[in-house]
């Protein structure tokens, strides 16, 4: 999703150190590198993806974010990015706290389970939602911990995490999420993008 990348790029300042957690085949890293002057690193669990990243000359280490983030010192990055991966972790809460330890700020994007099409799917069909952003069936999805934008808001409040910036993405349209429009955005947004800090 190109639009997501653009928003992430806008949130990141130039000449900073960035870590992309779960960087996949390095598409986002390359996009950021081409658009901003950054010292950017990645960590990725799939060997095939890591090999592709390394082949592109990107600095990526093979590893499991749930275990291997521990090797990075406190605040060793200005920004840590977690793009549409949070829901796939065994322990998302621990991962978030690691992101906020390693990075001064973190950018987390989540596929919004509160999106009206997702809700409607479950309501009408009575089966687990399968959509463009959530293409897997319940029995083979890597997504263990789906959440809604509202859930993520509540989580940050509870854990005293500062929500610096919240953006709702609906296809190509992006808009700011505020406390007043939260209920609506939780219904209309496909993706939530959050800039958080401790």
């Amino acid at each position, binding site marked *: 999703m190109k639009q997501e990348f653009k928003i992430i790029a806008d949130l990141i300042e130039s000449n900073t150190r960035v870590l992309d957690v779960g960087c996949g085949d390095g598409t986002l890293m390359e996009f950021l590198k081409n658009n901003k002057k950054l010292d950017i690193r990645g960590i990725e669990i799939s060997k095939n993806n890591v090999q592709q990243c390394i082949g592109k*000359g990107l600095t990526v280490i093979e590893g499991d974010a749930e275990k291997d983030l521990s090797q990075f010192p406190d605040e060793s990055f200005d920004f840590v990015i977690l793009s549409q991966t949070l829901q796939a972790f065994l322990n998302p809460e621990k991962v978030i706290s690691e992101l906020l330890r390693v990075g001064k700020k973190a950018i987390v994007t989540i596929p919004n389970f509160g999106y009206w099409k997702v809700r409607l799917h479950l309501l009408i069909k009575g089966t687990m939602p399968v959509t463009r952003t959530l293409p897997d069936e319940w029995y083979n999805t890597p997504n263990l911990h789906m959440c809604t934008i509202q859930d993520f808001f509540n989580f940050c409040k509870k854990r005293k995490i500062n929500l610096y910036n919240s953006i709702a993405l609906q296809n190509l349209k992006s808009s700011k999420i505020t406390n007043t429009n939260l209920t609506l955005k939780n219904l209309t947004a496909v993706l939530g993008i959050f800039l958080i800090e401790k």
Partner: protein
Amino acid sequence: MNKNMNIKNLIIDKPLKLDCGQTINNFPLAYETYGVLNEKKDNAILVFHALTGDQFVSGINPITKKDGWWSYAVGSDKAIDTNKYFIICANVIGGCSGSFGPSNTNPLTNKVYGTTFPIITINDMVNVQYNLLEFFKIKKLFAVIGGSMGGMQVLQFVSNFPNKTKVAIPIATTSNHSAQNIAFNELGRQSIMADTNWVNGDYSNQNKNPNKGLSVARMAAHITYLSKKGLQEKFGRKLQERDDLKFSFDADFQIESYLRHQGSVFVDRFDANSYLYITRAMDYFDLLKHHDGNLSKAFIDTKTKFLIISFTSDWLYPTSENKEIVIALNAIGADVGFVEIESDKGHDSFLLNTSSFLDTLKDYINTSYQNNK
């Protein structure tokens, strides 16, 4: 051994103090080069060889008449492309392919050094090879690359010369030899020393040769280079040119015959004392020890871009040991990439035609070179 061959020699004529305390001077460093050094001199790659390697990385080895030891990786259009890069590889000191080693003759006694040769370390090997940069007037290498003991030299090189290479690729290696590594090396050494023809290392002066001992050392080591799965798939319990067991101690099994063959061809090309010296250097290798037990300190000043590669089935230099290097580098914010390549071929994977490894290496080297322009 190997005299009158087509060997390029650099005579090092400035004194070098070895870690053991002795100083050496006026000694040969045998090397080979491939490809062309460009005008800017920014395309040089120094390849470090492993325990039983030599300077003949690619093409036909003029001594053995066989393919160079890393022909899968180094050559025209290969991962380390001789059309693009100037590749230098030197025989380590202590070795037996033309560099200063225990099979050389001591000019003071007119006898072959044997075990009177000084003990050398990985640090000594690297410091000697550094002379090649001055010889070729290369200010900064593009890359240093090596697997196994070659990887140790890569790590030592960056530690000694933090800004003399842009890229460093240590492969299937470790920052310090484990007890298991030392144990296997000791097994090899004891096997050589147990051969009555070794005569305390003086065999060359007495026209003897501890071939049996060296051959057993090679057989034992060879097992450590392969994986259990690889061995099982290749040999299983297959019999060697016979229909049934012979109820004897002949090589009934193919694996026995294979190991005996590996041992016997090895003694033709390798010096037993060199085997002792080089395995010792590996055992002594410990980058942590020289940096207060903190590996990160070994690399504290470097701007070098690292890529560390390990193999799933390598139990001699396992992924965990390679990852320790990654962790140490990440702790100081160094530029480090890491990938573990899937392979059943054990430690030897880096020397073989492991396509995912070679493809990754090739793309990484080429993009890193372009990005540096």
